[in-house]
């Protein structure tokens, strides 16, 4: 069946691509190890605690430093008007 | 007067020489490499730097342990683990102090048994500087505080391992 040949060669190509991507991933991880080490240094020397990803609100910029115990700001069911707030939710059970 | 000062000078020289000789005999603590294994339990030592202990012999050979407990097991029964050595061959014994994670001479610290602090092999004889024994005992439910020379077989906690990182 010609169709099955097409299918199997397609699958074979995809598996080759995946194998390539997999080695690429391992390679990249190894290659970027120095970067991770440098980032550790940054964290250590600047005593950083959070990713600078969501700079909208205190609790999204510094999720780990947000005042979990204070009223309102991280109230577990508070209405959120920052898009990132739905992603970086209030931290519970961290105590 | 002259004679007296001469004697003093001679004495001080002699003692200085003596001291330096004994200093030369004393070995500095070593750092475990990634290959050093505990002769008692066979575990690698380097992942547990805050627990490691060591016995250094006069001939420069040494043994690393993943905690004071195994060090005592070895120390109290050297022939079992090392037929060629006796306690007379030991130059120095070091342990890692709990609060500071500094390596200290074993006879300068106190060992507390029965506490809730777990080493890599479970219950431990935790090495504590003498001044903090009280704090440790009350914080971590320590039972017995012993000097190095007071530790006997009976004080070594069971080897049943509760693997803790």
């Amino acid at each position, binding site marked *: 069946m010609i169709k099955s040949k097409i299918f199997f060669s397609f699958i074979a190509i*995809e598996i080759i691509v*995946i194998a390539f991507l997999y080695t690429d991933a391992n390679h990249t991880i190894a290659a970027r190890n120095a970067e991770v080490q440098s980032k550790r240094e940054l*964290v250590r020397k600047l005593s950083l605690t959070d990713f600078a990803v969501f700079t909208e609100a*205190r609790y999204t910029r510094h999720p780990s*430093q947000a*005042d979990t115990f*204070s009223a309102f700001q991280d109230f577990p069911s508070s209405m959120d008007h*920052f898009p990132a707030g739905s992603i970086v939710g209030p931290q519970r059970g*961290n105590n | 007067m002259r004679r007296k000062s001469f004697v003093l000078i001679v004495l001080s020289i002699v003692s200085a020489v003596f001291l330096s000789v004994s200093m030369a005999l004393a070995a500095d603590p070593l750092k475990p490499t990634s290959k050093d294994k505990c002769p008692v339990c066979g575990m690698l030592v380097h992942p547990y730097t*805050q627990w490691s202990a060591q016995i250094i012999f006069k001939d420069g050979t040494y043994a690393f342990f993943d905690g004071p407990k195994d060090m005592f097991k070895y120390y109290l029964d050297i022939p079992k683990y090392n037929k060629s050595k006796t306690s007379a061959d030991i130059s120095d014994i070091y342990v890692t102090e709990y609060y500071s994670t500094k390596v200290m001479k074993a006879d300068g610290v106190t060992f507390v048994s029965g506490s809730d602090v777990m080493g890599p092999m479970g219950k431990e004889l935790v090495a504590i500087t003498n001044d903090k024994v009280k704090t440790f005992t009350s914080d971590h439910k320590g039972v017995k505080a012993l000097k190095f020379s007071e530790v006997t077989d009976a004080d070594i906690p069971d080897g049943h391992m509760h693997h803790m990182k």
Partner: protein
Amino acid sequence: MFIYSIIVATLTSLLFLTQSLKKEAMDVFIEAPELIVQRMSAGRHDLIPVGYAEKILSIPGVSSVEPRYWGYYYDNLTGGNYTLIARNIDALHMVKGTLPKGPGECAIGKGVADVRLTDLNDVLFLSINPQQKVSLKVVGIFTADSAILTNDLVVMDKNDLVNFFALPKDMATDLIVHVSNASEVPTIAMKIRRDYPDTRPITRSEIVRTYENVFNWRGGMALTMFIGPLLAFAIFAWDKATGMSAGERQEIGILKAIGWETTDVLKLKFWEGMAISLTSFLTGSILAYIHVFYFGAALFAPVLKGWSVLFPPFNPIPYIDLYQIFVIFFLTVIPYLASTIIPSWKAAVTDPDTVMRS
């Protein structure tokens, strides 16, 4: 099949991105301070007296205590929020130039440099009001590959920061407590809270756990974004399951008429479904990898960015968790197979004659 691949690609992209960020957070924040002590006042995070340090230092196991000075600055000019921190340290790898060596100097994140069109040796002017303002010479810019940590930072001299924010004398933002033995951290945290009931100690493991939660694939980011594609897939599968075309029905009828058994038909449909889902799954995974690790999850960025003015470009490291890929596989392939086989089975067990007539 196209839709199928796209859905798999979306789901897998999300997994790749969150897994990668999570792994990076775990890797990097292992170096975060063992213990940070915040003060709470009137239910809010407040400045802490530096004097607290003395008593904390006397707790056994504490090796040093260091006040930390930092704060946020809303920049009217660009609408961005900067994080200002005071640190006097020597050298760092991920910075072009140097770090501030004294008053009047600063090192800034790539994001700040970009929105302010500032380069090395330019002057960064920050102002809250006529009394609280500062001009800083940019002596360093954090490299782009550190943006995830440094994008919005302005690192400056302590005195500059204290003056700029007009912090009261002997007050700091929080205190960093260095502990020699990590096992002792909970005990020390407990003692600090006992000594100073108005404080909140944050341990390193809490920081790490925060990121574990935020980027956990079952919670936070992933869950929020998962629901959409998963729902789309459910609709897609449901549509397939309920709407078997007359053509397909007739095909099954023909096959049965020429001597195929129900099991033969099901086998065919199984392999057909398997072939489609396998190709779609592999295609989707490949697309996801390319999307996330070659294009920095560019399609998600607008969603995640929200209203942040300073948003670092993602350049995730391809940490891949095979277990999660299996989860996606079972979450998509099994329902798809079920949704193709069940209606075929229904059609295949009826008389071929009726199937042909309808």
